[in-house]
């Protein structure tokens, strides 16, 4: 095994010979495993953003993009936020194709009623960015670093968007 310490794929403990190099605990998993773990929730997410057929096309495009970029991943951390980010961008691309002025897709209501679906309904009137932040935080349990990545902004901005979304909801539902 070649030791490529620079990529972070292998960690070398002090005094160990190269033979003792172990894969980092967060190595990139085989794509099949990554796909099986995330395909359902990504489809749910996109179904919240797009009509059925467009959501299914966007879902396939999301995993094809992930596959195209997969070899360049250096570790397996943050894969969930990463695939949500891709899905979000694919959805934006799709919406822009149809409505060039749009910045963020609006959330559609869901058929089933788990947390993310309740939230999709509840947050319908929020500004798009706040809505994405609230749903990803409370519906999908992404942290603010991850939501920042999805929104292509900072974790501070993500936290602000979520909390101002929540404030707005409190006011509306008082």
């Amino acid at each position, binding site marked *: 095994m070649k030791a490529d310490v620079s990529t972070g794929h292998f960690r070398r403990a002090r005094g160990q010979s190269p033979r003792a190099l172990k894969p980092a605990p967060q190595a990139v998993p*085989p*794509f*099949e495993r990554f*796909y099986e773990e995330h*395909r359902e929730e990504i489809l749910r997410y996109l179904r919240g953003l797009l009509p059925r057929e467009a959501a299914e096309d966007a879902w*396939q495009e999301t995993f*094809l993009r992930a*596959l*195209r970029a997969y070899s360049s*991943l250096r570790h397996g951390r943050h894969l969930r936020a990463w695939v949500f980010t891709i899905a979000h961008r694919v959805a934006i691309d799709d919406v822009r194709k149809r409505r060039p002025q749009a910045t963020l897709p609006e959330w559609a209501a869901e058929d089933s009623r788990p947390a993310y679906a309740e939230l999709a309904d509840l947050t319908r009137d929020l500004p798009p960015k706040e809505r994405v932040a609230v749903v990803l935080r409370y519906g999908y349990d992404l942290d603010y670093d991850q939501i920042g990545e999805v929104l292509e902004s900072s974790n501070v901005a993500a936290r602000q968007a979520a909390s101002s979304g929540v404030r707005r909801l409190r006011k509306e539902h008082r």
Partner: protein
Amino acid sequence: MTVSSSLDERFRDAAAAEGLLDVAYDLADTPVGTLLVAASGQGLCRISFDPEPEREIDRLAHAFGARVLRASRPLDDVRRQLDEYFDEKRTSFELAVDLSPAADFTRQVLTRLAKVPHGQLTTYGALAKAAGRPRAARAVGTVMNRNPIPIVLPCHRVVGANGDLVGYGGGLDRKRLLLSLEGALLDERT
């Protein structure tokens, strides 16, 4: 919301058609059990008697790259030729194989092994000699035991100098079954 099987298959087909996979794998039903078969861009790279992908895909990812996905299309030809072989309509495989992760000696031995014809037996010693290492019969045994592509690379045709079947990575029952399918074993009842 579950991903429908047609949506799932559509994605798997598209991924393979775009050439995005390091390895495609699928299952194949045969008289010697369900096999896991896998192909890289270079050719067939794995046949496993253990059809449980969980254990195999990490090994494949390690050897060939992380883009490992179940996809049936790239394995169509392999499955067809295996079917023909088990239906006794085929005596040699026309499949490219990928032995790139194997060490030199292993590759030499497996390349010699590929030339042992259908229905004929050879010995570990003879194979060692053919690979240019006449004293390495034991090492050849190890190579056979770890053969990444059994059946197609016919390690079942390799037996001990005294005709003893010795062993088989997939179990001796399978070795016996493959050899009798090829007519290489005298029926022991007669």
